[in-house]
Each structure stands twice: as C-alpha cells, then as structure tokens.
C-alpha cells in the first residue's frame, strides 16, 4: 500500500533521511521508534509534503501512485493523514468550519459530493463523542487554548471525521496522561485498525504500544531503518535503550 524506497531527504542543506526503505501493507500497523534526531518527524513531514523538506533521492508510492509528485492537499485527498506532534493553533477559525472545509475539499478532489452542514455535524458529533470531546470544544477556534492532551485528542477527532486510508501519527502519545492515552489508543484502533487501512506510529516510548499493538516495529537511527521486528522489539528497546541496537 505504501512503499518507501531508498528515501533520502534534506532539511535545508542537512541530510536527515539517508536511504530509508519501508514497505507497509493494508491492514498493518507499523511503529517507528528511535532516538532524538534520528529523522522520525522528518519522515512524517516528507511523506505529507511539508515545504522545506526536500527529497534528494528515492521514491514513495501510495497505492501505486507517486506520492512525492502530489501537493500536500492532494496527498490528503488521496487518503494520507498526518497527526501532528505539535498541532497548530489557528485563531479565528472554528474547528467545525476548518474540518468541514477540509473534508469537503478532499471529497471534491475525489469527485464526491460535499456533505451538507447537517450531515457533517452528525459525523463530527459521533467522532467527538467517541473521543470524549464535547461539541463546545469543536466550535472553538482550532486548538486555541487547548491543553497538550486536548490538542492530541482533537487530532484524533479530525482523523475520525476525515477517515483516512493511511495515518502517520507523529508522537501522538506525547503530552497525554494515562486516561487520555487509553482514549487515544482506543480511537486509533477503532478508526484505523481495518483491513484496508495502514498506520505508521512514530513514537519514543513503548507505552502507546500497550494500547495499539503494532504488527511491526522498526528502529530508525541516523536516517535509516536499522532493525525490524515484531511487537516484542519495542519491549526490548525499552529495556536496553537504542544504543546497542542502532549500530
């Protein structure tokens, strides 16, 4: 479904990804772990097309399509969702307006009819409810005045509404307390654990993986995948650290 081959990418003049190869099939959940500065967030940004992240070599195909040739909004319409490590505050734009516009832009791009206000609100209410977020919060400006945990929860509500085929979740577990971690983990399982979907979890810690059990765990160090294993690899990393595995 997602095929990353020999990916090299620079941020500014600095090479960050140095030949990363990864293959994700439908129905799978992959976790990428690794030390600070290994290139985990860069991978998420490169896949979603953030300006300033330049691919110098390699290829990425998503359902057979050249992902790197698409603009960020076209990648979203194609089914890619990036859960931000630091969700952005946008004063003056309500969550509801933002999400309805986003969803309908994606639908338009796919040649589907837009959802009416009532249809959209029904979906939004369901998803917000499932993640324990009240509608008042959805009416507030995007992420403004939200705590770190609320921002991450809001990312999951957005994911539920947009219902993507591929979710790249960049440290969605950071800043969450135990209860919020469970809610977010349940959300990921409910929205994304499906035979036609795929998830790439970027994380520092094993704890999210207690709730969202990965099929594969990869270690990313110095811009490359240095080791791949099953869920047990995450536990091993938690015990021994990255140092000896990264080599």
């Amino acid at each position, binding site marked *: 479904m997602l095929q990353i081959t020999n990916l090299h990418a620079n941020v500014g003049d600095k090479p960050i990804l140095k030949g990363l190869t990864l293959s994700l099939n439908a129905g799978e959940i992959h976790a990428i772990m690794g030390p600070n500065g290994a290139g985990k967030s860069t991978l998420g940004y490169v896949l979603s097309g953030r300006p300033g992240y330049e691919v110098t070599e390699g290829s990425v195909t998503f359902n057979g399509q050249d992902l790197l040739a698409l603009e960020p909004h076209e990648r979203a319409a194609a089914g890619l969702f990036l859960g931000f490590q630091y969700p*952005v505050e946008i004063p003056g734009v309500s969550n509801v307006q933002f999400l309805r516009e*986003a969803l309908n832009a994606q639908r338009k791009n796919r040649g589907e009819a837009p959802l009416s206000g009532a249809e959209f609100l029904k979906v939004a209410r369901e998803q917000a409810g499932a993640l324990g977020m009240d509608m008042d919060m959805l009416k507030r400006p995007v992420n403004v005045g939200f705590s770190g945990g609320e921002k991450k929860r809001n990312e999951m509500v957005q994911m539920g509404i947009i219902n993507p085929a591929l979710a790249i979740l960049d440290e969605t577990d950071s800043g969450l307390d135990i209860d919020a971690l469970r809610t977010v983990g349940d959300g990921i399982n409910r929205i994304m654990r499906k035979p036609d979907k795929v998830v790439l979890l970027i994380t520092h810690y094993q704890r999210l993986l207690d709730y969202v059990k990965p099929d594969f765990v990869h270690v990313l160090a110095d811009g490359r995948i240095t080791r791949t294993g099953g869920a047990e690899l995450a536990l091993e990393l938690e015990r021994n650290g990255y140092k000896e595995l990264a080599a």
Partner: protein
Amino acid sequence: MNRTAPTRHDEAWRYSDISAVEAAWPLAAPESIIVPAGGNFARTILQDTGSIHQLNIAIGKGATTAIHVLNIGGDYGRVELNVTLHEGADFKLGAVQIGGGTQNLEIITTVTHAEPKATSSQIVRSVLAGTATGTYLGKVAVARDAQLTDSVQSVKAMLLDRSATANAKPELEIYADDVKCTHGCAIGELDAMGLFYLQARGIAPADAKKLMLQAFVAGVFEGAGDEEMLTDAALKKLGELV
C-alpha cells in the same frame, strides 16, 4: 481653510498618492457629525471606489459612537477620522483595509480625549499584496484634564508578497497623569506552519490562505449593523488576492 494640496512633508499625507490627492483637490469640507450628550451613533464606511472620506466627529458627554471601515477600492483610497470625546464618551473603530496590485490605501485617525473618563478602542487590520501600500496613522491625544482616560489601539498588518508595503504609526500624546493607554502594532506574514496544517488536512493552498486571512480580520466588524455586508465584501476582496 488651507486651499493648497498637501505634500509629502505633511505628516498626515506622507505615504499618500500625492498625484491622486492633487487631482481630487480641493476636497469638499469634511463631514461634521455631532453626537449629542447621551446619544448613540454608528456609521459604516465602505470605500470601494477610490475616494477620500473625511469625518469630524464630536462625541458628547456619555455618548457612544461606533465606526466600521472597509477600505478596499480604487487606486487610492483614504479614510480620515477626527474624533473628539467629551466626558465619559465612548468611541469604537473597527477597520480593515485590503489592497493588491498597485493600490494605495490609508486610514488616518486622530482621537482626542478632551475630557475625563472617556474610552476609545481602535482595531485596524491591513492585508496587502502585490506592490500595494497600506498605511495607518493613528494618534491618540489626551488633554491635561482628561483623567481616567482608557484608550486601546490594536494595529496589525499582513503582507502576502515581499513587494507590498505596510506603514503603521500609532502615536500617543498624553498630558494627563491618571490614564490607561495601550497600543500594539505588528506587521507579519502568514504563518507557514498554519498554512501547512490546513493543507495537510486537504485544503488547497489558495483556500488555506483565504481561511487564515479571514481569521486575521475576524471580529473587526462584530456588532456593526452591516456586519454581513462588510464581511462578505472583505472575503470577496481577499479571494481576489490569494
């Protein structure tokens, strides 16, 4: 009355399109508005043809005045307000100017707190693209006896292109000693991370910009009788720029 057209040496015309001003000279006398004690006055000024509006407003004891301005049209557009507040009066200005191409748009305000306990609040937002110039000169003067004056000024400009120009000059002249006068001024560009966030959720670049600019001017027209008309006209103009 001064019958000679102003030059760049006149501070209030420093950034003006002088040849357009000369062509329009002599101007009609400014419109004079007197709000009686205890009265309420509201006015919407939509400058969409390229003209010069000059208003002198005297707000009587305990009276309130709300002015909303949308300055968007023509090669050169100027809205000039001279406001005098008497005891306990209140003045509110919500102004937006949006320019592209080679437009030169300006808003000039002089707000004089002549007597005690008057309040004034001015919000001005400018969005500029192309080689447009947007200017806001805003003077707040507090007379010697105008104690307990409360004055707020918030001035922000957004540049969509490196070739656009924003001039902003908030100015305070205070002769009383027990007053509260705050002003803030910022000139910036659209937040790149915010734009990327919107695009990553599927919104096309031009629509993402428009959404962020809409947020930038949001709230300025709140409470205006013509809020919907002003908002629609502002959004239409923003849509032309992105």
